[in-house]
């Protein structure tokens, strides 16, 4: 079982390494944490900080369900060591909606049916938020390119692409156009 062996290997090699103290900036707050050198960000978010909205789909960078924003850039938290994120601004799905309501990207996913089983959804939303912050008016090709590291098995991506376009229009304050 090669994958199982892979996952055993770090623990063996590191010989149960001592935890080291680090400070991570997560969703705008400084979090002081004791992590092992080989802990990936996904584990720290889910297991230590209880930020379970970031989903674990494959542990090997193939599904995108664990996407978070680091300094505004969508990254796979399962392939990023927690210590690598020291000093950076980490944003997870839990930071996207505010007290005043859903983010336009989230609202658009609700409206179009861009979320079915929902497991991939936080990853897609983080990717989309990262894209739209950098490029407020992406073409459909740019959207497809941006989300090509995220996997969805329910929607065929159609309603997701529709949602991102809808959100982009709303964020640019253009009149909403009802999706098909």
């Amino acid at each position: 079982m090669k994958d199982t062996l892979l996952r055993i290997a770090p623990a063996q090699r590191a010989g149960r390494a001592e935890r080291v103290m680090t400070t991570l900036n997560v969703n705008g707050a400084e979090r002081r944490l004791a992590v092992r050198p080989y802990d990936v960000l996904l584990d720290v978010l889910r297991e230590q900080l209880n930020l379970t909205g970031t989903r674990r789909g494959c542990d090997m960078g193939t599904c995108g369900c664990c996407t978070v924003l680091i300094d505004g850039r969508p990254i796979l938290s399962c392939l990023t060591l927690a210590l690598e994120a020291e000093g950076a601004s980490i944003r997870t799905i839990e930071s996207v909606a505010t007290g005043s309501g859903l983010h336009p990207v989230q609202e658009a996913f609700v409206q179009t049916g861009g979320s079915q089983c929902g497991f991939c959804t936080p990853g897609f939303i983080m990717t989309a938020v990262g894209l739209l912050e950098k490029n407020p008016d992406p073409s459909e090709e740019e959207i497809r390119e941006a989300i090509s590291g995220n996997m969805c098995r329910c929607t065929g991506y159609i309603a997701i692409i529709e949602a991102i376009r809808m959100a982009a229009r709303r964020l640019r304050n253009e009149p909403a156009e009802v999706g098909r």
Partner: protein
Amino acid sequence: MSVVGKPTPLVDARAKVTGQGVYTDDIKLPGMLVGKILRSPLAHARILSIETSKAESLPGVRAVVTGRESTVRFGVLPVSRDETAMAVDRVLYIGDCVAGVAADDEETALDALRLIDVRYEALDPVLTIDDALKPSSLPIHDKTVGGTNIQKAVDQDFGDVEAAFASSAFVERHEFKFAAVTHAFTEPHCVIAQFDHDGRLTVWSATQVPHYLHRALSEVMGLEMHRIRVIRPMVGGAFGGKSDPFPHEMIASLLSRRTMRPVKILFDREEVFITNHGRHPTRTSMAMGVSKEGLITGLDLKALIDGGAWGSFGVVTTYYNGVLCMGPYRVDNFRYSGKRVYTNKPPSGAMRGHGAVNSRFAMEVLVDMLAENVGLDPLEFRLRNLLPPMTKTINEFRITSNGTKEALETVRGASDWDNLHGRLPYGEGIGVACGFYISGSALPIHWTKTPQSTVHIKIDSDGGITVHSLAAEIGQGSDTMLAQCVAEPLGVALSRVRVFSSDSDTAPIDLGSYSSRVTFMAGNAARRAAEEIRKDLVGAASVLTGYPAEGFVPTDEKLVYAPDPAITVTFMDALAEAIKGKGALIARGCYAAAPPMGGKFKGAAAGLSPSYTFQAYVARVGVDAETGFVTVKKIWAAHDCGRALNPIAVRGQIQGCVHMGLGQTLSEDFRYNRGNILDANLLDYRTLTPKQMPPVDVFIIESNDPEGPYGAKEAGEGPILPVAPAVANAIYDAVGVRPKELPITPDRLLDAIAGVRRGGTKQAARTSTARRPAKVGA
């Protein structure tokens, strides 16, 4: 209708887009242990010994269990209980469960697995269908056909196929081959089991059929069902792959019984692939005849189906490969011989379009060939051969609503079929295909008197409407559908309704989310429960106003007296009156498919459904004849779902089906090397990426089924059926070759194109001379 038929965002969508939704792996319980499974490195071997003492003495390890812990056999179908929690004497595939460990943390559990010493005696594995058909000195399971590894052989014969073929103008017989494909849902399997000191077991699991898990747990753990509580948290996709009761659910329960602590088992992605239960690799031989008038005369079908190591739903799969060819065309002579074999590979099982997808591909390709033989346009040919609504098939399926004709005409117009088919330049093509699927199995797996679906409703003076059901929300939108079917008869806003569909302790039994049964069955049950409770409300309105109860119609949060709409009672006032002296309103509704239907022959129940759905798709493709690369440019998809209770959900199901269907058509392939999966990750197992996904024009055809809730049938599975054959038929239109193996990879297609150019085959010769010389050798 104020709720039904309106595009309705899913009631749980906000929980999903915010990450607040709780999937099984998000649950943490006090004292929870991490469970891990030791898996077999061999495809077939006898277990000589298992030494666990080193693992057990590792600090932090709380329990180790092996196959001896429970030898009770289970399986989703009562006729094929051939699984145990862990291997008892023999391991049957690479990845078969051998031992389970519960430890304080994941690293300790994984270390413990390495300390378990298993001695195996390797046995010859059976890895191919051909080998499995032969007599074996040691079949994979006890109950097989005549000492071979054939698990199930089905033979059905209606009419006289030989005579029909003898009088046919043309008969085409061809061989088809289908690779294994798998669900590839994003959420890995996960389970938490917790025994308590009241002698009760609670299991949280990512399952689409909590009730079958409940039954299997009862048998394996030797506990009465009422001592077991099954909870289904949010499920991150399933598509049939989470419908069996699984060994890991038993192992977690066994580990919890040993430790009396909650034990969680979460799979890694490789374990998800090993667990499989995906679509069966299949070899299909199909012959169809046609009269000179262009009517189908008969269908002769043989299917050899690779089941892997366990039975799973395989007996049903075996029947479905044949009987789900009984629509949408009229076939008066039909012969089917199907065999499902055991092999030493991860089990195959139910996957979206269960049992129907591969045979449908063969059938729709043959239909195209026959149309060409008799000189008819393939779409026109299909129209000529359709079953009408309200009819019966030769194997006694009762066809009620049927929107195939409208579906075909719709995609014909939308795709500009009449101007494009046969007229596009070489390398460009357009193809059509139809589909046919059940909307719930009329006869349940277990022969009990329990209705297939029951729904409870409670309304107390707070005005909230609580709906209890065990129909599993797995992303398809069943909670939303239930809320709609309750809100509509009560005339209230959807926001009043809250659906609780995850807890076997509070919900009445429902057979769960498989076989496309939920909208039809649970939807009917919900509607009936709401209509029951409506009687209390109109009665109360009558008491308050003095007008007869029959006159009141619930609408827009009020009860309006129809003869004089000025007389109204608000929902809340009627509720307060109805509750007075009685307490909260409660009601139940159920669905039990028991109309007299189906024949008396062996296997008559297979494929029998209270209603069927129909599809017609057109695909447009581009084929690069130099590289063999196929680009699907567009799909026009028309699906008869009876009535779209929620068009957002129906559209989403169709689009998702197109995505999954195109994956099987072009790139998904679950390959093995000596029983070892080569593609056990989401990179090598290639689903279509966002950049490969073509536009899909969805057309919802509403045939309004007489027995469906508000006319609805299913939308989750049928829409996958026409995808692959529509693409294959478009490829033929583009380059003149007939793909007969899935996936249609560039190398296979290139070989076929080269064959046509050399004029190497009979069909190629016909194509290159008779049909379109201009396209060949371009």
